[in-house]
């Protein structure tokens, strides 16, 4: 194993690290001091799931499609008054319990995608860690509160034929 140390390659390597040293000293580093400075994730980031309760009809599609079975839904049927006088009373679903266990959730997004009534939305909020594991089961009220953090859908690039959906508030 011959050893021939030619100097130039070694010196160039030293130059790279020295240049980065000077750059960090003058222009600042690439990292942020986290609890004091927070970088915002992108708008589509999958942080937490929010529920728009009015749209939900307890159809159970999300609970069925979830790979981890982390959504717990209970509902009951009730008779709503007829739309016109003299008509039949309509049967509607009411939502009793809608819990998502974020300790089990894979953050895959299948539930948000299969919902036919657009009741579930993604929000980029990610700082909801709890000391107790049981507190990671978010119930209906908490999921509705996450709706406030859901950003508006952005426009698409030119050439797209997808319709832009509005987030119901």
């Amino acid at each position, binding site marked *: 194993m011959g*050893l021939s140390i030619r100097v130039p390659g070694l010196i160039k390597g030293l130059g790279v690290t020295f240049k*980065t040293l000077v750059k*960090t*000293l003058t222009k600042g*580093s690439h*990292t942020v001091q986290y609890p004091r400075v927070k970088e915002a994730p992108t708008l589509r980031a999958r942080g937490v799931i929010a529920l728009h309760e009015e749209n939900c009809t307890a159809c159970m599609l999300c609970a069925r499609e979830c790979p981890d079975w982390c959504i717990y839904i209970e509902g009951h049927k009730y008779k709503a008054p007829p739309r016109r006088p003299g008509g039949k009373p309509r049967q509607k679903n009411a939502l009793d319990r809608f819990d998502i266990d974020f300790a089990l959730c894979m953050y895959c997004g299948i539930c948000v995608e299969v919902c036919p009534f657009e009741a579930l939305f993604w929000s980029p909020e990610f700082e909801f860690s709890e000391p107790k594991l049981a507190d990671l089961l978010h119930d209906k009220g908490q999921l509705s509160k996450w709706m406030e953090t859901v950003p508006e859908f952005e426009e698409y690039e030119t050439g797209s034929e997808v319709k832009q959906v509005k987030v119901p508030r």
Partner: protein
Amino acid sequence: MTIFNLAIELAYWQQTIIRSVLGLVAVLLPAGTLVYLYLFKMMSFMQSRLGPMEAGPYGSLQLLAEVGKFLQKEDLFPRTADRVVFKAAPFVVLASTFLLVLVLPAGPDAWFINIDTGVFFALAVSSISVIGILMAGWGSSSKYSLIGGLRAAGQLVAYELPLVLALMGVVIQAGTLNVQEIVLAQANGEIFGWGGIGNPFLITQFLGFMIFLVAVQAELTQPPFDMPVAESEIVTGYLTEYTGMRFLLFFIGEFATAGIFSALAATFFLGGWYIPGLDPTDNLFNLIGPLVLVGKMLLVSFLIFWFRFTYPRFREDQLQQLAWKVLVPLSLVNIVATGVLKVVF
């Protein structure tokens, strides 16, 4: 030892206490400064990040926090380890560091010992750490530690030679083994008749300086010569079984030795405590001499740590080839050239 020309004469025991405290400071201060400035901050800046910022302003108290953390750890050691050897190893390494700092002069009158064989003493004492590392490697009774310890033994013994031979050029040029005399030779010397900045041996002994730096890097087992502690292969080698306070002793010892070797390089090649333009026997130097020495030490250790953070590591046999086939012949050539030039000029 006389510093500051005190009006009162101190008793011997009082002098000993002052000497011990100053010795402790002389070892721990370079260690702390180097750890903070270079390991925490310079390495982080080279990697586009800021390093520790929480403990103290700009993270300056991080080392104290780490000492506190290590102090409260459990004192573990492997059941099959040799207790005496295992426990004594860090102290042997530290002993060599403390002994090495004795020969460094920090001013015309500020020195611990001023013996006529200063260079010889320094080089002899710096080899004690090899025994400590071997003790750590063998006494841990773990395969990883054994491999690390044996690699360290081979490497450290191999690089003692370039270290010694590089300094021989300095000794020939100064004409003495006394460290204080070497500093004064640089201060009072002249380059081709111009006495403006004295005669720092860096200029005439540049080859020796380079060899000395490479050999110091290897003696400290820093990358690119850190095979004994190669983290990705043998999980810190001879340090694997050391936790808590014992690990901290090794850690501090490593950085203290780095600082002291840099100070030695600064003394032999850059002129030690001397600033050009002032009279070397001036009493002022007793005050600012230590500061000047620390400044020069920081310069040299910047180089050592810069190499450390940039280069990957050599394999053990390539390391040995570099020592025996390249550095030793080069340093012999250096000695011959120095001798010839000394006689001619």
